[in-house]
């Protein structure tokens, strides 16, 4: 049980690290949101499952309730994180920020902002 929790926790940390490095490496506002908003959700799923596993090691009613609360945190993050990410992207589009693209800048048209 402990071993599995450690593996999960390390996996979660790996995703978090990837998210942080991705924010630094990606070229622009929009693409940076991909690692920022998403790798975190994977990281927290793994890390919180590890915490829940450690708690459930000693099975009792209180611990079951705590594990249920941890499960609810995961559910809420999976609902709110895409919403927040979408709100940030939407704000960028409304402000008129153009996405970085590989093709020459001259070819970008207003149509891209829909």
């Amino acid at each position: 049980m402990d071993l599995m929790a450690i593996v999960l926790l390390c996996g979660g940390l790996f995703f978090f690290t990837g998210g942080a490095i991705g924010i630094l490496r990606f070229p622009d506002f929009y693409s940076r949101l991909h690692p920022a908003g998403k790798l975190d959700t994977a990281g927290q799923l793994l890390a919180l499952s590890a915490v829940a596993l450690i708690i459930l090691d000693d099975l009792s009613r209180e611990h079951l309730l705590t594990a249920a609360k941890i499960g609810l945190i995961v559910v809420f993050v999976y609902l709110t994180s895409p919403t927040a990410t979408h709100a940030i992207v939407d704000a960028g589009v409304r402000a008129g920020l153009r996405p970085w693209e590989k093709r020459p800048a001259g070819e970008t048209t207003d149509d891209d902002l829909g």
Partner: protein
Amino acid sequence: MARKAQATWDTVISVLNAAKPAQSLRFNRGHLISFLLLLALWIVFSGRFDGFHLAMGVLASALVARLSGGLIFTRPAPKGLPRLWGRLIAYLPWLLYQIFRANLHVLYLVFHPRMMDKINPKIIKFDSRLKSDYARTLFANAITLTPGTITVDVTALGRFAVHCIDDVSGDPLPGQMEERIARVFEK
């Protein structure tokens, strides 16, 4: 089974409306579902099962459901609710698997030494055949949850604008994901 559940709903609602209140004060299914959800959350969060705390929970949930139930379910709930939930739960493992796979893909991109050659950010647009608000919301949510793609905009006519980080992430859209959600809602 579904019809029986339907009858139970209707009975509970008619009991709640027994005093025949004015139209604006009537209970509907949205209130009832909100109440049950809130009560379940109360019980999990409080962790106490004695009469006093449960009664407090019932009171508080009823009050909040009555005051703000209309915010949670703005439209009449779709028909065949129990079966819909069943299909929704059956769809979740697939979604989790997709999220996991896409996470690994973005992780691979993040650590790739020639990351700039690999990525190709762009906004793609497509028309979705999903009709209901619930289905479109779920679809937009699923797109954003899957790393590599973020829903930028959905119009009232169901036109999706999606920002994707590279061709591998963007190409499968709308595709299988839309099909799965259509199967949940529109059977």
